[in-house]
């Protein structure tokens, strides 16, 4: 796998491979790049942010409370797009538990007043 280290502005081009059970990172200039390369190879994670629609109109911005596995990002977006919010929420409150079976909740990042 080829990627770019994002841990500092240098942006080393990393190459990560598995050789007889061991993960090998090359192209990094420091230990942080090594760790980043490993985690991107084993299980890359992302915080997902998107919008949830209200049943009677309006939108509210949400995020996953924790980073979720990158391969679940599309599913999270799909479930969020299909969901309709029926009541008011405040920023920080949970909108949808265990989104896409990730074990992580979607929480509101702004206030929403249901009409």
């Amino acid at each position, binding site marked *: 796998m080829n*990627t*770019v280290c*994002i841990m*500092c*502005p*240098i*942006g080393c081009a990393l190459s990560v491979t598995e050789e007889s059970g061991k993960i090998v990172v090359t192209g990094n200039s420091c230990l942080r790049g090594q760790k980043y390369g490993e985690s991107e190879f084993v299980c890359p994670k*992302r*915080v997902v*942010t*998107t*919008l949830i*629609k209200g049943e009677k109109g*309006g*939108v509210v*911005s949400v*995020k996953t409370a924790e980073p979720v596995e*990158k391969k679940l*990002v599309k599913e999270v*977006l799909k479930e969020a*797009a299909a969901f309709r919010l029926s009541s008011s929420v405040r*920023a920080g409150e949970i909108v949808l538990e265990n989104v896409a079976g990730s074990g992580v909740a979607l929480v509101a*990042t*702004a206030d929403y007043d249901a009409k």
Partner: protein
Amino acid sequence: MKNFDVVVIGGGPAGLAAALSARKKGASVAVLERDDKLGGILNQCIHSGFGLHYFGEELTGPEYAKRFRDAVLQDSGISVFLETMVLSLSKDKIICALSPAEGLLEIQAKAVVLAMGCRERSAGAIALAGERPAGIYTAGAAQRLCNIDGCLVGKEVVILGSGDIGLIMARRMTSEGAKVKLVMEIMPFSSGLKRNIVQCLNDFDIPLRYSTTVTRAEGKDRLTGVYIAPVDEKLAPILEKEEFIPCDTLLLSVGLIPENDLVSDMIELSPITKGAVVDERRETSLEGVFSAGNVLHVHDLVDNVSEEAAIAGESAALYALGKLPRGEKYAVTPSRGVRYALPQRIQAGEGKVRVYFRVDQVYRGKTVAVASGGEIVKRKKTAVMAPGEMQYIEIDKTALTGDVSIYLEEV
């Protein structure tokens, strides 16, 4: 006429941080905001990545804005005027504003903080050839329509400009089900953060082409496609290599301009930053008028905006209360490799000053030097510097003996 010690024009992150720090010094404060909500552009930036420096945690734009908004609204010493458009500011600091609630509003301020933010360069500003069909938006306008109004502006998208707003919108439109076909950058490098290139483009397999631009837009009522071409070293398009890309939407992310129309005939503006020329207290050439945030110079991190605005707010309060010291000022001039430095003046005295600067291209392994009165007073080694990432170097005022210059060694 109403009276306040400090009047802040603009209720974005800069305005809110300025208001809070002015209050800490005991000034009475008013914040004038034309929108119906405080928080500025942050309200539409729903992605995360704000506040890592300032709060030590990763917040979304609305969350970052809320922390400041709540603190401002809870402070009885800060009067907030929403839906209030400032129309003029006079030299003796009388502000005229218009609002549905108050009608025409006149306010006498002792000190003023300019915090009006910036606006995006539009199709007009970059002289795009061809038709003017529907479907051409600035990235920020598309972001607002999408994230505040919940309306997706198109299905097949091409983006010109690889600044952060363009990159963020590439991911956002993809998340909403649009197909982003291509992001183009006229320069051979991106002005956006590495992190955004990886997580907004690479994660979704969106191609990025450097040294490429849009030559023409096509379509009668709605955009049907754009012609694109690679550019030569002088950034002129190589028309023999022009190709057509069908799309219904073109997003422009081609730069931001500080919004200084209110004061452009009254204070000295820098031809490079297009913002005010200020000293380290962020005081402009007009005594008692201060400036901070994107109206002063375009920032890439909101954390820096909050920091800068806190300085401006505190200084404005001290000025209003008659406690801002005055003294000799040294000019700060950028040279060799440094495109601009801010503040452009430093008042002699004591204490530390952070000089913020941007370089003119990508540099590796260079040393930044600050000289004053012909002697080097500070040097700092750096690994990599890019024009898209604002840098700073901290200097001790007691070391200054004359005008200051900042440059890269061996450039």
